[in-house]
């Protein structure tokens, strides 16, 4: 097999970018360049986002009327399961860390690459193998357990549970390897002068995420392995008929999957810190508070899993403790939101598309955060648990939080990644459609939830019809906004203007190299002398804290 063609121009006037420094398909398939891997991840996660998004639209369309319309009960159950499983395991978890994180982390640290470039390539292929398993599961007998695989349903259903859980099991290893790589990169690869207090907040967020990935994902692997063994050998660990406990699975599962919520949202927080500072030309307000609150969230996230089990029959004492700890995780989250708003104070805010997404995030994520409070409150959760209120809440956090931040980040770093500018007007139209569509879809579901509409129903009581229809129409607007965004971004690749190295006026290190960057990122190792948010527009004479 031929290796990549090396283009060694002895006297390059301008060094070619990482996109063209090597050519040919093989140069991409065996690349160890974190930027190329970032792009490959980006293409993969966007593909799965599209697939799972189409499934979501199918679900919402089925729910347009209270009766069964075009999907049978079995089909509906498989579609919501695949929507959840693909969105969580193949899109959201790898979205920011593996796509944007891979691309940006070494650039922001002033490094040539991640600590273990080959391991990084391995992570990508492990992820790809996992995706193949999930696709095979879809194409064979489907999967109808919900993305949570609760026993004993998952041990008794006739669908492809083993194939699918094997896929998720393998995806976990990709997550662990990426996390490990990032932890070592942050510890060892920082440019001279970049101490822990000078790291961009995106790096802090990716670092906290990586720690959770490394510590929590093995528990998921163990849990899924137990499920596979239970299903194939019938050892009875979750089977009450053999002295096992089906609720034990839920404890195991959420011990991973609650921290995983923060694997999904923390990187989004990092993006927002970068977007808000750069587009307002302000030093971040409360750098230490934001950085340390990421770490605090990462730590507390390990001891709140029991709030998924408030009505499962777990002991009352456990319920009370988990309720208290869940409120505790709200404090560092609130601190972050307040700090972002305070950053806008006396700034010079430039409303680029990325900034629009940043502002939209403050709205959607605040709704997501506040509606977590009644779900943490024991007595209220008893009513709202497993209703559409929960569906609305976690979509506000996952979509309103992570996905909005991700798309904002994509716009923020698109010129850096591709070397092309997209059309700003098109971008703002897209953001508006996404924002309106998203709020119409999910705001409605809070009302459905407190009126008692349970989750995972393909047919429902006619009283709920109006709200379901509003929600469905919202989902179409959201889909239109996302498709529109996809189209103009792809268009910019061919017709977009050439991007300057620093289109938004950022001062973190990725803006100090050309767009798109050269293969080894920087011509010379950069030296860091101050804060990542020390913008030239800041009025040094005005006094203030330094």
């Amino acid at each position: 097999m031929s290796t990549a063609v090396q283009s060694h121009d002895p006297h390059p006037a301008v060094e070619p970018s990482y996109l063209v420094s090597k050519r040919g398909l093989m140069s991409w398939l065996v690349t160890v360049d974190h930027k190329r891997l970032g792009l490959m991840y980006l293409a993969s996660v966007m593909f799965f986002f599209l697939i799972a998004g189409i499934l979501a639209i199918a679900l919402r369309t089925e729910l347009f009327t209270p009766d069964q319309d075009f999907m049978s009960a079995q089909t509906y159950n498989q579609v919501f399961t695949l929507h959840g499983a693909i969105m969580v395991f193949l899109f959201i978890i790898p979205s920011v860390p593996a796509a944007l994180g891979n691309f940006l982390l070494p650039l922001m640290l002033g490094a040539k690459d991640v600590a273990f470039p080959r391991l990084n390539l391995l992570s990508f292929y492990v992820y790809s193998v996992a995706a193949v398993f999930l696709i095979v599961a879809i194409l064979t007998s489907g999967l109808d357990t919900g993305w949570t695989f609760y026993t004993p349903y998952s041990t008794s259903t006739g669908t492809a549970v083993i194939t699918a859980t094997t896929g998720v099991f393998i995806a976990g290893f990709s997550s662990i390897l990426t996390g490990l790589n990032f932890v070592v990169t942050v510890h060892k690869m920082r440019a001279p002068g970049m101490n822990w207090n000078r790291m961009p907040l995106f790096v802090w967020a990716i670092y906290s995420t990586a720690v959770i990935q490394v510590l929590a994902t093995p528990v998921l692997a163990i849990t899924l392995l137990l499920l596979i063994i239970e299903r194939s050998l019938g050892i009875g660990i979750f089977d009450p008929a053999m002295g096992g406990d089906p609720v034990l699975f839920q404890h195991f599962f959420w011990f991973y999957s609650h921290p995983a919520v923060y694997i999904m949202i923390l990187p989004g927080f990092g993006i927002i810190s970068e977007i808000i500072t750069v587009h307002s030309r302000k030093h971040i307000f409360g750098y230490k508070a934001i950085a340390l609150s990421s770490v605090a969230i990462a730590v507390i996230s390990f001891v709140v899993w029991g709030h998924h089990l408030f009505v499962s029959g777990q002991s009352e004492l456990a319920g009370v403790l988990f309720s208290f700890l869940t409120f505790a995780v709200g404090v560092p989250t609130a601190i972050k939101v307040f700090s972002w708003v305070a950053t806008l104070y006396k700034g010079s805010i430039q409303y680029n598309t990325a900034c629009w997404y940043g502002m939209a995030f403050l709205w959607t994520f605040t709704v997501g955060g506040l509606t977590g409070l009644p779900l943490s409150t024991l007595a209220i959760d008893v009513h709202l648990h497993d209703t559409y209120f929960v569906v609305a809440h976690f979509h506000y956090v996952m979509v309103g939080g992570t996905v909005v931040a991700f798309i904002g980040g994509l716009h923020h770093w698109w010129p850096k990644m591709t070397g092309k500018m997209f059309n700003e007007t098109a971008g703002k139209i897209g953001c508006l459609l996404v924002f309106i569509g998203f709020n119409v879809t999910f705001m409605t579901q809070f009302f459905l939830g407190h009126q008692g509409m349970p989750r995972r129903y393909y047919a429902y009581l006619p009283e709920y019809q109006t709200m379901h229809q509003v929600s469905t129409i919202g989902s179409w607007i959201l889909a239109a906004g996302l498709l529109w965004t996809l189209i103009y971004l792809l268009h910019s690749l061919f017709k977009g203007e050439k991007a300057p190295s620093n289109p938004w006026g950022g001062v973190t290190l990725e803006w100090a190299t050309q767009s798109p960057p050269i293969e080894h990122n920087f011509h010379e190792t950069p030296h860091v002398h101050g804060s990542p948010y020390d913008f030239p527009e800041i009025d040094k004479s005005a006094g203030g804290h330094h």
Partner: protein
Amino acid sequence: MLFSLLIAPAAAEAALPPSNPGTPPMSDSPWSLLPAASANAEALDTLYIFFWILCGIAFVGMIGVQAYFMWKYRKPAHGHAKTSPLTHNGKLEFIWSAIPTFFFVILFAWGEIEYMKQVTPPPDALDVRVTGQKWSWTIEYPEVKGCSLTNDLYVPVGQPMRLTMTSMDVIHSFYLPAFRLKKDVVPGRYTVLWFEATKPGLYPLMCTEYCGDEHSSMVGRVHVVPQEEYGAVLAKACELKQGDTESTEDFGARVLTRGGCASCHTTDGTVKTGPSFKGLFGKTETLADGSTVTVDENYIRESILEPNAKIVSGFSPQMPSFAGRFDDKQIAALIAYIKAQK
């Protein structure tokens, strides 16, 4: 009540006959809460409204400040304005950490107090046994011998009821929206739910833990009746005998409702988890092993008592046995009903 404007009148109190096989109407306004039909529901609504007021203020305040900053500190038309060198403010950060913490503690404590009431049944509560299975609820009253209802729970007003629940197969969750209560129903153990209904009426009961194909059909009814009528209403509900003027097919239809058969078997030809009854009688079906069976009285009877004995190809063994639940007359009526579905 203070928040009466926000709470819709209990529409379910309307004069629906207790035998109505449909589901009771709930509030149809998106802006109102559900009917509150238990002491717990009323207490919880107060807490819930407190939460919304608190969060409303927090949200409007935060978004208001954001919107003001967004407008006030927008970039000038040309170039950039000089921006503030502010990087932190310890006092401000302490205040905005302490205020949420204070309200979180209130929400936590209030929720904890109400929760302890929710999980502590009083000693004089009446016992009811609930069994979840795919995809119906079996409800049994120890004080009425042999009484086994499907998807219908009868309770007297003002009398604490204690439900001891378990599942025959997978995990279900017993949800009473009008009482603001739910509890998972788990195989291999008992879970307990208690409540005291305060308003007569008909309210829905739903499954909220995903349990397979017909999860959406695990919907039942709670009949809250005045104390003085409770004994008679329950006795009548438990009775399952053919009336003097009732045809056998009509009686069969009542048996069908009592068994919860409709969650899997339709009469309009739609195939759900089990075969539709339309045109079923007399058909020749192929079993998984390739042998054939004619759907006659004997096959139907066997399928009711031993559902897994002969499963038609394309279906899976999901049906529970009704041996001991239905007697010969009831089975005969059911067969007559199925025969009549041409």
